[in-house]
């Protein structure tokens, strides 16, 4: 009896230990190595672009940089970025204030209407405007980009306003401030980080936007890059401009990250919180309804109106695209997006797991590398991968794989975010319990962690796929010859003023874009998600 017990105890002690010692570091090493590989792959577009520029003739680069056009393009792009950012800041904060701090009737409905603009891709909105009005150039691009990006400021500001302490505004009033001064001195500092973070995302979007500036014939950097590559065949100029644009994007993302950290640091100073007393608008509410109504009419009414008009027109002329064309484009769009989402997931898994479970310098570095996708405009990633495939891997040039890889890099931040948050939500205690029951780390991952986290990761991957379906500039550069997606067909048809033919594509794209927009707005307005996930 006694000896038997001894053996059993000895077995228990002896068997799991060596296995763990062997497996745990091995598994972690594989995880670290794959995270490093994923981060390096995510950096390929930027690195290769820099290499390409470094290889070019020095005088060519200087020629390109001193080219008078670059200065004009810079002024154009920066001007557009500043104008749209300023407009979004003012309109977004005002809308958020109306929807959170006043007694405006129907605030809930207005919240939905004012976030629906996210469901209209900016180049679809641009199609709507040029198909029905004569607005072009700077004002066209300004209008379209402001209206489409407004929710990026409105939604996080709403979340911050809901968290901000309204009593401090009351205190400021009793200490001698007018209503306006009290807002500026007491409330604005509390919502400023959120509003500015939203504005930086707007700036990033405007910087990288290609479709709407091209359709509006506004000479911005992105369009000029495409023209330099496609029409002028000046690859050095295109590469140099891409590097400049990439640097601007990286600067914006870095600024946005810093601001987000600052927002967390400000924190809350209240223990108990009473519901804010709403400002009575009185007769002003008609003005508020009018303003919000005008914004909704411009951002939703114009594109949808254009759609309705040309969809109805189409049945009469019937010279437009056939249903089979549309179906073929739709299926190739879905296939490409699925491949892109798969690449994004493959790259995101090691980086996300490392960030969620093993906080270290390596985790921080690999996670930062994944944010390159947010900073690099689609046209830059597309162009860099064209050069890369031509010079390094010719068999991949214009292959489905190269485009899927571009999608993977561009939407990596979204995928990493989904993986990280899903895994963070799995209690580490559960993993410990599973380990004490004799499971190896790998088995714990498959039987516990992944089992609990997969719905969140799956939803994230689905969002990546839906976002990839409306991607335009990288798709234009990298798509296999003869393959069209919904986005490229819309672009081609709209550029050729075949508006009636373009309308069904616009409708399909709005349907595609509406899903993530509607899923995410509620959580962004509640402060549970960051607006960059809706980009």
């Amino acid at each position, binding site marked *: 009896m006694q000896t038997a017990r001894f053996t059993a105890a000895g077995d228990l002690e002896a068997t799991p230990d060596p296995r763990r010692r062997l497996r745990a570091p091995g598994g972690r090493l594989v995880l670290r190595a794959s995270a490093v590989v994923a981060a390096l792959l995510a950096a390929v577009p930027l690195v290769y672009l820099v290499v390409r520029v470094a290889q070019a003739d020095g005088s060519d680069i200087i020629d390109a940089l001193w080219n008078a056009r670059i200065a004009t393009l810079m002024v154009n792009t920066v001007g557009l970025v500043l104008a749209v950012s300023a407009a979004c800041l003012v309109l977004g904060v005002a809308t958020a204030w109306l929807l959170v701090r006043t007694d405006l009737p129907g605030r809930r409905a207005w919240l939905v209407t004012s976030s629906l603009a996210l469901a209209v891709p900016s180049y679809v909105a641009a199609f709507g405007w040029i198909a029905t009005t004569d607005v072009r150039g700077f004002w066209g691009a300004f209008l379209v980009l402001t209206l489409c990006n407004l929710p990026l400021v409105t939604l996080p500001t709403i979340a911050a306003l809901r968290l901000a302490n309204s*009593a401090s505004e*009351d*205190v400021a*009033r*009793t*200490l001698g401030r007018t209503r306006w001064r009290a807002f500026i001195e007491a409330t604005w*500092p509390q919502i400023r980080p959120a509003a500015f973070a939203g504005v930086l995302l707007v700036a990033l979007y405007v910087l990288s936007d290609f479709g709407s500036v091209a359709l509006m014939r506004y000479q911005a950097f992105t369009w000029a890059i495409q023209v330099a590559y496609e029409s002028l065949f000046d690859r050095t100029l295109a590469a140099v401009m891409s590097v400049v644009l990439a640097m601007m994007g990286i600067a914006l993302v870095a600024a946005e990250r810093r601001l987000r950290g600052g927002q967390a640091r400000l924190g809350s*100073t*209240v223990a108990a919180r009473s519901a804010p007393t709403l400002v009575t608008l009185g007769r002003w509410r008609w003005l508020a309804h009018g303003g919000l109504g005008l914004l909704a009419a411009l951002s939703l009414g114009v594109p949808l109106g254009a759609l309705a008009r040309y969809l109805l027109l189409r049945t009469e002329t019937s010279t437009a695209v056939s249903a089979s064309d549309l179906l073929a484009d739709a299926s190739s769009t879905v296939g490409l997006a699925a491949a892109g989402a798969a690449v994004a997931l493959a790259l995101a898994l090691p980086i996300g797991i490392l960030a969620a479970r093993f906080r270290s310098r390596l985790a921080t570095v690999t996670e930062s590398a994944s944010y390159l996708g947010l900073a690099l405009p689609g046209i830059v990633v597309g162009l860099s991968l064209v050069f890369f495939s031509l010079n390094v891997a010719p068999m991949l040039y214009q292959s489905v794989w190269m485009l899927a890889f571009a999608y993977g890099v561009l939407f990596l931040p979204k995928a990493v975010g989904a993986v990280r948050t899903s895994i963070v939500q799995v209690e580490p205690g559960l993993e410990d319990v599973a380990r004490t029951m004799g499971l190896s780390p790998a088995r714990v991952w498959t039987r516990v962690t992944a089992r609990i986290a997969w719905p969140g990761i799956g939803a994230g991957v689905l969002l990546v796929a839906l976002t990839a379906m409306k991607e335009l500039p990288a798709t234009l550069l990298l798509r296999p010859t003869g393959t069209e997606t919904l986005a490229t067909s819309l672009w081609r048809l709209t550029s050729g003023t075949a508006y009636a033919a373009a309308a069904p594509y616009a409708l399909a794209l709005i349907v595609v874009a509406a899903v993530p927009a509607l899923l995410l707005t509620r959580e962004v307005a509640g402060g549970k998600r960051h607006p960059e996930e809706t980009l």
Partner: protein
Amino acid sequence: MSDLQVRKIVAGYDSAPVLRGITFTVPHGSLTAVLGPSGSGKSTLLRVIAGLNRPIEGAIVIDGKVLSGPRVHVAPERRRIGLVPQDAALFPHLDVLANVGFGLPRAQRRARKALELLDMVGMSDYATRMPGELSGGQRHRVALARALATEPDVVLLDEPFSALDAALRAEVRGQVRQVLRRAQTTAVLVTHDQDEALSMADQVAVVDEGRLVQVGTPAEIYAKPVSRWLAQFVGGALVLPGTWNDGAVVGPLGVVPANLADGHVVRPGDIVDLVLRPEQLSVCAMGAGGGPGVIALVRDVAYFGHDAVVTVDLPGCEQPVQARVLGDQQWRLDSEVLVGVRSAGLAFARE
């Protein structure tokens, strides 16, 4: 001098006013507590006084100057009224000194004045801290210093201690009272905590469902409440049915001398409610010779050291009865005791 007069205030929303005619006066330099259950409209009253809400009817007058009234509405920033909100509401982006100096002219914001105020509330060592680094009690003291910095005529405190834990609350309460006395500031404190109202205030105004129930000194409110509801709201109260017999109530405790509450009229022989405070009951061991009384059974004893609350079952009484007695005696559970009444109770007519 800055007397604050609240005159017939009706306020809230047009269809359903939260306040329905509130009138009282706060004498200069004194503290009035507005006491009421949650949802009684106390906070709305404070916002009306501060000018953050505009009353539908009535007036707010300080030293004969009308601040709110028919066709008059002085903006909150011109009223010289300070506010200490429930959660202190320090500006999270400003340090302690900048919070205190917020209401001062720009040149004086970091000058001696603000530092003196911090000293007065005992927070001068924390001048450069951010609000997030302070404890709950410290935040309230900074909020008070901030409200006093502009030398307001009146300071309003909105449930200022409800977010603090019990031990801290008594301490901060005492400190705040002292600071207000030293500054000789007229103050209005809103609270649902009767201990807070009775212990801090010179005058208590009880509000229920938007109406004023009674105004008086804490002793008046406690000893001579005008209604049964109020008697039960401020402090523990034992309510016993009985028959009115000119200066006495005949009921489960025998013949108890009693006064009739203000404004109540009854004839001899009418059924009344007799209200007794727990400390008005005496409890004696059987055979100790404690005088007249009714035999009761000890159900529970809560011992606090300085005193004890003995819960007894009284014959003819459905609910257990609580008596507060000195803590110098020991009580056995389920033993018989003699319960008597030490002073005159208060009788209320039945509606």
